């Protein structure tokens, strides 16, 4: 069965005619070519496909696109502001919280959700927030440093 889904993705209103069984992940990758949404395990365990659904982080491989009617969705492609890196992105780059980069979009989205709620998280709060995101390269230490070191917090909460 197919149906029309309307939602706002990275600030742009979209109307898509989709199979009701399609996941949000597939909609973002296949219909909107947002390739920063990565398919890792396909079972909600690795966190690589994390996006924000109405501001809340979700693993998009476990969400049906049809359930996103009227929702606001942000992917890693929608995090930059005025073509400038968001302070969180800047911090991830500078602190070297990135190696192969496959987990990075999910890490960014989950960290963004944390910082919006809690602009100055402690190390244990960062670890708790990112415990659903697997990274095989970095050993996480620099990701924690990057999230804790985000400058210009006003730009996040705004």
């Amino acid at each position, binding site marked *: 069965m197919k149906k029309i889904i309307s939602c706002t993705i990275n600030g742009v209103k979209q109307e898509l005619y989709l199979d009701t069984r399609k996941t949000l992940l597939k909609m973002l990758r296949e219909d909107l070519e947002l390739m920063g949404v990565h398919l890792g*395990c396909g079972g909600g365990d690795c966190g690589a496909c994390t996006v924000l659904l109405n501001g809340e982080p979700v693993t998009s491989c476990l969400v049906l696109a049809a359930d996103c009617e009227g929702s606001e969705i942000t992917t890693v492609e929608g995090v930059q502001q005025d073509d400038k890196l968001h302070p969180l992105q800047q911090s991830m*780059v500078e602190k070297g919280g990135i190696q*192969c*980069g496959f987990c990075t979009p999910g890490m960014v989205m989950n960290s963004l959700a944390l910082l919006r709620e809690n602009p100055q998280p402690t190390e244990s709060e960062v670890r708790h927030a990112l415990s659903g995101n*697997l990274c095989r390269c970095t050993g996480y230490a620099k990701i924690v440093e990057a999230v804790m070191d985000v400058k210009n917090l006003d730009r996040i909460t705004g």
Partner: protein
Amino acid sequence: MKVVGKHIPHDSAVGHVTGEALFVDDLPSAKDELIVDFIASPVAHGKIIRFNFEELSQLDGIAGIFTHADLPGHNLFGPVIQDERFLAEDIVEYVGQPIAVIAGESRKAVRQAKKQLQLEIEELAPVFTIDEALAAKQFIGEARELKKGDFEKVWNEAEHKIAGTFLCNGQEQFYLESQAALAWRGENGEILVHSSSQNPTEIQEVVAEALGLGFHEVVCVCKRMGGGFGGKETQAVIPAVMAALVAAKTGRSARVAYTKDDDMRSTGKRHPYKIYYKAGFTGAGKITGVKFDIYSNGGAAADLSTAILERTLLHSDNSYFIPNLVFRAMICKTNFPPNTAFRGFGGPQGMANIENVLQEISIVLKKDALEVRRLNCYGHNDQNVTPYGQIVQNHMLPEIIDQLAETSSYKKRLTEVAEFNRKSVTHLRGLALTPLKFGISFTTSFLNQGNALVNVYKDGTVQVSTGGTEMGQGLNTKIRQLVAEEFAISYDDVRIMITSTEKNNNTSPTAASAGTDLNGMAAVNACQKIRRNLTEFASRYFSAPENGIVPSIEHIHFEAGSVYDDRLPENKLTFRKLVLQAYMGQVSLGERGFYKTPGVNLNRETGKGNPFFYFTSGAAVSEVLIDRFTGQLKLERSDILMDIGESINPGIDRGQIIGGFIQGVGWVTNEDLRYSDKGQLLSYSPTTYKIPNIQDLPDIFNLETLENPQHKINIRRSKAVGEPPLMLCLSVWMAVKHALSSVRNDITPRLNLPATAEEILQRLTELNGDLSNPETTAVRATESEVSLVSLPSISG
């Protein structure tokens, strides 16, 4: 404008945080693209009786099903021994082994066709464990032996002896990006493959051979991998051939992207090992001789197992001088996916075994394990010869151990741990310091070569291509730095281009930690050729015979983006202007560089030689907390000290060290590959296979590097850093053993690897239980005559 030695972010970092950096499966689909999947063996060993592939190929949306009979070339491949079938013929040898390639218009069409599969296989008796393979005498390759001195003599005369069995399990690479490839058929039947591979040259060659093409008719490119860790050194071949076969047969572009589940079920892993060890030693704890009978579980085909076993032999000493030894080693053939490269490449298993031996010596002698390790550690002027005859030179192993013991307050904490263990009825603590010495170079000596292409454009910017592949380790960033430094230009004016067999031929895999050493040196070699051309041109350009300034290359300098003659420094030209002038002066601005590592060799007959250009070394001290009732383990603190020479990029190297260490911690603690009694992997996704999570980071984590003024070789006096830090994880494993050894003092506790909560709990139960029970595996340390395990003989 110094670039080398600076912390410059990874060159794809911005692309990754914005989602702009693409992986293979992110590349746009061509209109005619086919989705490629495979039909895998459901059994570990069996004879294919019949299947309905013909019927499936007629289904709607299916473009074709291809078996080994459809290969225009040959079906056999393998990096060392050509014993692996790309598609099974009449016999299947592991669960997940590809039998046929299926191509469809959509994933849905392929999925639906696979549901209608009828595959009849007559099951044959499988062999899974090393013991079963030994009983069935199923081996891969030849037995290997390394001998030094007279082990039997020192064993018979030894003041103290231990013997036992070391057992370790495998490890899944768990790169986040699963295996993937895209293929296109071009004019005249040429094939282009885009592969997530550490070894594009091997993909090029195997695709050509499978399709019956010349190597010149196939191009393989790799932009980046979402992690490799060795798992894409050889095993990217099968998906690449699948895509290429479909493209060749149908003329349409073809895409294959394994699901994580299929990837974990059908690809090889780090080798499980079983090692029978005997060690003789003095009352002070000095090893007089060891004998190791080493068996690896190779899986169903050779893959890289022979090279991996060789590295185990060459790392069974770790950082310790052993005067008399016999190492015998053999690969067992079993019905698992062919085991393959994984960071450390056989080194970790050999090193874990000897660390276990050292720990047991300390337990038997009731000494501090650090004292025993320090006593046996390689020295500078004596006790510095490895089992294979290479002298450990210019190293700082004793200094590293001493400095780390000091900065981590080892002695004080050891006392505190003992005090804690005396008092606590609920928990146990353990503390261990283990050193690391890892040989850098491929032990297959001819692989130690690299080539690079450097093109300087008329605006003074530079493109560099090498055979090295980027998998997150920062190779491209480091090469950009090296090239910018050679021309004294800005880092931003250099770009590293996609890795392609079209530009760099006959390349070695990006492996053995040698990516920067080989490809960086080759790039620098090309830069030096261009610089020579430019210098010669500049010397003429700046000459002023009327003022007595004759052309002289000695006076030409490249500095901060400019070039000048030091006799007329005010006449300097920017690099960009000089390049344009040189172009108009018909000077070559593109060169190819080549590098081979000097002086590395290994005689496989005698087991002697200098297989390594140098060693990367370090040490770690870790403290663990164990719940006595559940066996649950918490890594509380780790301190690391490494000698990585003069770092080209300290930020990237720090990431490699932390990442490698934590990956190793996964291997020694929670990563538990579990199979059914039919050989099906049960822990085939992150729901059941637990790689380290962010919560597994130690609460206190210190990392330092130290200066080694003696290290004067290799590119910019740096050292390889990719694999070595993984083996620092042995400090965690040995800290567990240390904790167990405090339960009672008349027993040497046994500990298999990984030390999962289950494993720890089982050992605690044994230690707390009745030792007369024949089931118990704990070894009595007080026995004067050690009853030895009967050692299976190795032929050859």
